[in-house]
């Protein structure tokens, strides 16, 4: 064993040793090893996982190839292509190996391939739609499947009695019923694969798809009951067995659903407590859902139903509890797994069909089955729909019925079940296998190919997507309540009544129990729509090249909320840090509540999408926590680019201001900023205008100091230019003792041209009008204009006061020769214009007591200008070691997510 390990370790060393491989292999068998082998071929140790990976890889590559041609995929569903590919591959394997090697094993299928698909469909099932149509779905799933199974089985038996099936097929009525039960169920995998590309209207889709998911219980029961009857022999079946069969239908379906709900509850409850271990949130979702599947399978309950219910039940709470990143992770992992499994299933179906040793052909049986399943499906749908329409508000019309009948695709479930049959008990198994393969291929390929043209030709109502609006969301809620109330008045306890009851119960107990406090609000649907609209606006706004933050009394709907949130944030932070002053503006930005956190995440997402990172990853990485540094660095870089660009344009157009290069470093949440604050406090009361009086442009360069804990951040400094913070003070401003910084952030430096764009000219804060189009970014929701102003003033003033610092850590300030500066250049980083209201003259106590600061911020009127950029900076830090003649303020993106 040890030897093997050693040899394995040697493996990477031996690139050229490949030629030795056969001798090594033979040598290692019986004889003592000839020494340390340089290379060893260990195929059998990795064979199984390697093959699995290889199959998935082949399937994925095939998928890529199919999608190279848009024309092909628009005409032919992917599932058809995959089955055909499987046929070809199976043929190749057969030709090479002379026997069919690989095929769809029922064990693999039920334990590994099916769960991800079902979980995906359950989790992302539109629950409202599903429950709105639950009656129809259940009818089709239960009655429809029973009907299909019995009629098909009996009809085939009749066919045999009529002598149309060859006598080789030794099967009695029970065998045919067994076959009917496994062939009758509409397959969720096949339906999903085909219908996802067809885009019929959502009601139709949910009915067909919901049926295919829920009929699993019926299929399982029928299959098991028939199978045990066949194994017992028809003579031994007694009346009680039939009763048991009926009873087991309820046990299996309700039991499966119950298992799913229990696990959904557990899952929701668990995610409530993952606040500090966000990284395992996605894993929990998969683990518990899979556990639900396995538990149901173990208890011979309907596993598909269990996972469906688990996904359906937990989604609301899980989505509220887990972080935004985890949500994305869950979504993509789930989709990836499901797509993988689906691909492999179809490909293996194709491959399995090649194995001719397993099947025997009988034309009568095959054709008869094909005809019967189509015929009885159609008949069943028409009959059930007629009954259902008596009770439906919106009747299903004829076209819907055609699509529903035609959409009854059979798939891998039927195939896996037929493979599971015992040949000794079911002598006709080979015939059944052949028939099932033909039926599956026919439904997936022929019906799959033709359903799209059919839907087009019949002009089936397509699904239409329109953007959600707040009004619609609100009115929809109103309508729900109105209907519930009217049902109360009429005294009829119908669907709306029970839905209303459920929602009340959910609100009162379930959500309280299963959702985090902080998450509770987010899940309000109206708020959710509002939030998403804001995000969308922000994105589109940024895409148009606008600034993320705006000013000038915009009628931003989120303004008031921003205020309140950030105020609480500030107070919280100050309370926590116990520090008197907050020099840096990131503090204001610091988020505390879950909502704020989410905003910040979204903001960072936006930031990340707006520029191309050119950095490498850092060497260090945490296993248990996602490192925030990458994001932090990215954000910093965005900022630096902005600033650099600004500075360059400023430089080139205006003045010969020296441009310092220095080495900024990231830092983590540290305490060193307090030094700066202390300085600020100490010097706050000094005259403010010292040194600035005759300064036209000042470059403040504060070289940042590495903190002890940021050991790993050295790697990134080389291509950084320092963040140059240009403060330009016009004498006019300073004489008035007033300052108002207008920092304009361009989210992406590439977007903003050096000269003012049209958009810029029309931007609200340019035109100074408040009623312009409202763009609300996620960022705006976490930054308070008022606090920003204060914070900005504070930092400015503290910097100023640092000009004559008493402490050794303070860098020196060099005043550049005075330059008269104009402010017509829009990209000038700091636009100091006179603002009569905002000034440096905030009370000194502000810097000491954070509470008073936030209070005072509330007193301030809405400021005309914001300082957007500063919001991202986490720490401003003063370096001791510079004999540099500049101050450079090092800005960091907050890593406080």
């Amino acid at each position, binding site marked *: 064993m040890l030897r093997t390990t050693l040899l394995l370790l040697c493996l990477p060393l031996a690139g050229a040793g490949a030629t030795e491989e056969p001798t090594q292999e033979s040598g290692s068998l019986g004889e003592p090893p000839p020494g340390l082998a340089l290379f060893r071929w260990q195929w059998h140790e990795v064979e199984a996982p390697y093959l699995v990976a290889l199959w998935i890889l082949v399937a994925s590559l095939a998928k890529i190839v199919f999608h190279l041609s848009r024309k092909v995929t628009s005409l032919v569903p992917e599932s058809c292509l995959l089955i055909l590919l499987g046929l070809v591959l199976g043929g190749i394997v057969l030709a090479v190996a002379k026997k069919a090697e690989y095929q769809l094993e029922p064990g693999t299928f039920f334990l590994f391939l099916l769960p991800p698909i079902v979980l995906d469909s359950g989790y992302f099932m539109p629950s409202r739609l599903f429950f709105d149509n639950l009656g129809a779905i259940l009818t089709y799933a239960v009655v429809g499947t029973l009907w299909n199974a019995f009629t098909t089985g009996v009809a085939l038996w009749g066919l045999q009695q009529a002598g149309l099936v060859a006598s080789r097929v030794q099967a009695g009525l029970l065998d045919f019923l067994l076959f009917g039960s496994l062939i009758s169920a509409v397959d969720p995998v096949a339906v999903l694969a085909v219908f996802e590309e067809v885009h019929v209207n959502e009601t139709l889709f949910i009915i067909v798809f919901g049926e295919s998911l829920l009929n699993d219980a019926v299929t399982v029961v029928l299959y098991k009951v028939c199978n045990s009857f066949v194994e017992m022999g028809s003579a031994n079946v007694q009346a009680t067995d039939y009763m048991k069969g009926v009873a087991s239908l309820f046990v299996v379906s309700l039991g499966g659903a119950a298992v799913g709900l229990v696990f959904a509850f557990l899952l929701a409850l668990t995610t409530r407590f993952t606040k500090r271990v966000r990284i395992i949130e996605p894993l929990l979702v998969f683990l518990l859902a899979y556990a639900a599947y396995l538990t149901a399978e173990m208890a011979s309950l309907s596993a598909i139903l269990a996972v469906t219910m688990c996904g359906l039940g937990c989604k609301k709470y899980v989505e509220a509890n887990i972080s935004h990143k985890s949500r994305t992770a869950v979504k993509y992992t789930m989709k990836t797994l499901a797509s993988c499994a689906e691909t492999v299933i179809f490909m293996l179906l194709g491959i399995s069909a090649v194995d001719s040793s397993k099947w025997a052909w009988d034309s009568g049986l095959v054709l008869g089955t094909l005809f019967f399943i189509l015929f009885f499906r159609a008949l069943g749908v028409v009959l059930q729909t007629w009954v259902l329409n008596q009770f439906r508000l919106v009747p299903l019309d004829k076209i819907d019925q055609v699509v529903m009948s035609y959409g009854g695709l059979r798939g891998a479930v039927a195939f896996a079940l037929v493979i599971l049959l015992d040949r000794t008990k079911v002598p006709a198994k080979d015939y059944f296998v052949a028939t099932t393969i033909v039926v599956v291929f026919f439904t997936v390929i022929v019906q799959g190919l033709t359903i799209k043209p059919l839907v087009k030709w019949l002009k089936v109502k397509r699904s239409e997507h329109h953007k959600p609006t707040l*009004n619609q969301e609100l009115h929809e809620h109103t309508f729900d309540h109105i*209907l519930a109330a*009217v049902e*109360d008045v009429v005294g009829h306890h119908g669907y709306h009544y029970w839905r209303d009851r459920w929602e009340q119960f959910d609100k009162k107990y379930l959500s309280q129990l299963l959702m985090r406090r902080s998450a509770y609000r987010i899940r309000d649907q109206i708020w959710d729509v509002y939030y998403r609209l804001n995000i969308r606006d922000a994105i589109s706004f940024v895409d148009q090249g606008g600034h993320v933050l705006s000013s000038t009394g915009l009628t931003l709907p989120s303004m008031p909320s921003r205020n309140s949130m950030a105020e609480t944030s500030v107070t919280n932070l100050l309370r926590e840090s116990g520090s008197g002053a907050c020099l840096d503006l990131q503090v204001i930005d610091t988020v505390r509540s879950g909502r704020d956190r989410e905003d910040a995440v979204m903001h960072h997402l936006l930031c990340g999408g707006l520029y191309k990172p050119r950095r490498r990853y850092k060497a260090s990485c945490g296993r248990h926590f996602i490192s925030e540094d990458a994001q932090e660095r990215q954000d910093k870089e965005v900022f630096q680019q902005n600033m650099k660009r600004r500075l360059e344009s400023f430089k080139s157009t205006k003045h010969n201001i020296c441009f310092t290069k220095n080495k900024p470093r990231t830092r983590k949440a540290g305490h060193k900023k307090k030094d700066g604050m202390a300085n600020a406090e100490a010097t706050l009361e000094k005259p403010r205008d010292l040194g600035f009086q005759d300064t036209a442009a000042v470059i403040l360069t504060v070289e940042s100091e590495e903190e002890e804990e940021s050991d790993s951040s050295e790697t990134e400094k080389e291509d950084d230019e320092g963040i140059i913070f240009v403060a330009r003070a016009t004498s006019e401003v300073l004489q008035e003792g007033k300052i108002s910084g207008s920092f304009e952030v361009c989210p992406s430096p590439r977007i903003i041209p050096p000269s003012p764009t049209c958009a810029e000219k029309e931007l609200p804060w340019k035109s100074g009008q408040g009623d312009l189009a409202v763009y609300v970014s996620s960022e705006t929701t976490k930054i308070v204009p008022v606090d920003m102003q204060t914070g900005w003033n504070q930092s400015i003033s503290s910097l100023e006061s640092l000009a004559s610092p008493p402490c050794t850590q303070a860098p020196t300030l060099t005043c550049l020769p005075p330059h008269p500066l104009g402010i017509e250049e829009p990209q000038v980083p700091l636009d100091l214009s006179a603002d009569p209201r905002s000034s440096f003259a905030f009370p000194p106590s502000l810097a000491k007591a954070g509470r008073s600061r936030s209070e005072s911020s509330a007193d301030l009127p809405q400021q005309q200008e914001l300082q957007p950029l500063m919001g991202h900076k986490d720490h401003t830090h003063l370096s001791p070691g510079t004999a540099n003649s500049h101050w450079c303020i090092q800005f960091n993106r907050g890593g406080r997510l």
Partner: protein
Amino acid sequence: MGPRSSHIALIPDVDQIRNETGFSEASLLRLYGRFQTLDRNKKGFLSRTDLQQIGALAVNPLGDRIIDSFFLDGSQQVDFAGFARVLAHFRPVDEEEAATRDPKDPEPLNSRMNKLRFAFQLYDLDRDGKISRNEMLQVLRLMVGVQVTDEQLESITDRTVQEADEDGDGAVSFLEFTKSLEKMNIEQKMSIRILK
């Protein structure tokens, strides 16, 4: 079922009510039975308290407003005709009936417009034909969970009003209201199946 009448002819003014509301006989009978159950003192009309005793209405955020909509003309009582008239808004739209309708007839109570008007008057408390910002705020307060702060609610209100407000008067008129719901299947969403 106590005083439930088993014959359609026992309902006062039955023909006129049928014409006006379009209810089927069975529905009218059912409603009349319900009306009589709610009318505890056999007054022949319903008062506010009769409706308020319905348990589930009390927890319905719009319960009071729905009750108010039965007493729109300011009176404190509603007879069966009025009761049926309000509920007729929720009768499902019958396409055949809609196709054969004489265009000169007044729109049936269950038309899309009337359904919308019913919803609109639940918002428009002061009945000035406009949902003001304040009225919108009140509805949102009822709809949105308590966890949303007042400021946030105000922002949502502003945005909601802005979204629908086309003429810029800061309020939502009925026309703007219908426009904001253009894409929604009102006929389906504001109907109750049993009220045929």
